[in-house]
């Protein structure tokens, strides 16, 4: 294929990544701590693409030293390099939602060894200056929550709705994905919400304000978020939670 294709593919990839950075949808794919690496990659890819457009020195023309035994760019290679761009441009960027839960282990208790907080809402505001998240509560409860200590505590969390078919009426999960690196390692974390008379649909983003109570199902006692209000919201710019 024409040598023009190489710089075009490299520049195309740089533009694709730049678009994701510019519109913020890069957060649908990777942890925010790695975003700066994508900026660096965009710059490097553009610089590399530019290098193809510079006139070759005479010595290269004579010896073809720069040929580097590079395999001629076949249509297979060009197609595979173009595939992420095609998929990215033809399918609207979408954060992971309910559909990705099917093959993942959902947790309402962390496997991590965090120091539990007595008052997650207050601690979140003091530590980060922002409202608490599902993760704050999941961390606070720990694997064996001392539920009486949390009963009655107010909560204000956002997430997407997942209605499990086996759950009682008016009860559903409010969930977020916890992402360490990229969506390949996304782990869903959730709280059980009880919201009588409220109509919600799977994948709907909501803000739930309410308070916690202890719910005993069989021999297991779990925290239950009793909703005072359930407000539909737009998906946040950063849909995942990070550790």
């Amino acid at each position: 294929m024409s040598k023009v294709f190489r710089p075009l593919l490299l520049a195309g990839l740089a533009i694709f990544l730049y678009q994701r950075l510019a519109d913020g949808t890069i957060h649908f794919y990777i942890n925010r701590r790695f975003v700066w690496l994508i900026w660096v990659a965009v710059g490097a890819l553009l610089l590399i693409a530019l290098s193809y457009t510079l006139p070759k020195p005479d010595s290269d023309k004579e010896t073809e030293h720069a040929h580097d035994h590079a395999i001629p760019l076949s249509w297979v290679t060009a197609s595979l390099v173009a595939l992420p761009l095609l998929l990215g441009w033809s399918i609207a960027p979408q954060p992971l939602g309910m559909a990705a839960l099917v093959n993942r282990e959902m947790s309402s208790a962390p496997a991590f060894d965090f120091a539990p907080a007595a008052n997650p809402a207050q601690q979140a505001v003091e530590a980060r200056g922002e409202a608490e998240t599902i993760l704050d509560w999941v961390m606070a409860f720990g694997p064996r929550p001392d539920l009486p200590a949390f009963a009655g505590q107010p909560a204000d969390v956002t997430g997407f709705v997942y209605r499990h078919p086996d759950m009682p009426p008016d009860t559903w999960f409010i969930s977020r994905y916890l992402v360490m690196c990229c969506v390949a390692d996304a782990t869903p974390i959730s709280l059980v919400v009880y919201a009588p008379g409220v109509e919600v649909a799977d994948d709907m983003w909501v803000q739930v304000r309410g308070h916690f109570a202890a719910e005993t199902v069989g021999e297991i006692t779990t925290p239950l978020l009793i909703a005072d209000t359930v407000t539909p919201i737009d998906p946040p710019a950063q849909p995942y939670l990070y550790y």
Partner: protein
Amino acid sequence: MTSLTHTVRQRNYFMLFLLAILATVFLLRVYLPTLLWQRTQAFVTIFLGIFIEAVPFLVAGALVSGLIAEFVSPDFLQRFSPRHPLSAAMAGGALGLTFPVCECGVVPVTRRLYRKGLPLSTGIAFLLAAPVVNPVVIASTYATYGWSYIFWWRMGAAFVIAVLIGTLFHWAKPDSVLRPEEQEAAHCACCALDAEEDAPALSRARRFWRALTVAGDEFLEMTHYLVIGCLLAAAMQVIVPQSVLLAWGQGPVLSVLALMVLAFVLSVCSTVDAFISLAFINTFSPGAVLAFLVFGPMVDIKSLLLFRQVFSRRTIVYLVMLPLLLTGIFAVAFNIVGG
């Protein structure tokens, strides 16, 4: 004329492929039931997530490769390559300490070093050790586990396993280990031109730009395999329920196998896998977590596809089986002796 026809045909195939993908996406969107379309979107998101995360590291690896091609002479490498099999492999492992590249970036660097005459054993040890013992992974493992036994055993086991496997390759013949194209390149007179010989002809700036072009070629060739690896990894995530693997969490042997398979399937960048392993620390045996941290960076779906660019098929089988066996034996022994 023939070349022109070939070029036109290649371009037509490429255009057909673009159209086929766009048509497929359109048909899926129109005819797939909502839930299946959402799962398709999830697949695309995971695929792009793995790909985007890998791109900066592959660019870094390609850039280092280009710079080596342009500025490192074969003489320089041969002067500093130890002759003793074990020393040569240890040098490869130690080289990993200096390159901040993950399992994606290390492959183009290794390929370039081979073209410059690096001994096989040194290259294999570097390829397997660098994704674990490099400065970035050392920092992320320390940030996760501190100076705990997990930190030291991860670094120690990865280094020892890489050096052992590298040493074994000392006795292998290059023509049975490397792809024929790599063999050809390693013996090509024009590619063996080194920095000193070529230097008078070109300014440093000009050679830098030429290194960038080499990096671009390298990046495109590697991306070919990276995309296939990312597609497979994303498909596995959508098809295989994690619960199937996590159900093996108990027991000194099965737990090790489960986390090695999970590391292979997840194909997560080695720079952050320590954070991810935290999720298993209370569920799986310590040996299994160590196996995840040692085996995953050495071999996963996407790096396996990248190996195709450098090594023969038989070598790739060895590069999967030897780390699998050695890491498995180490991790099971750790569980039995330590637990």
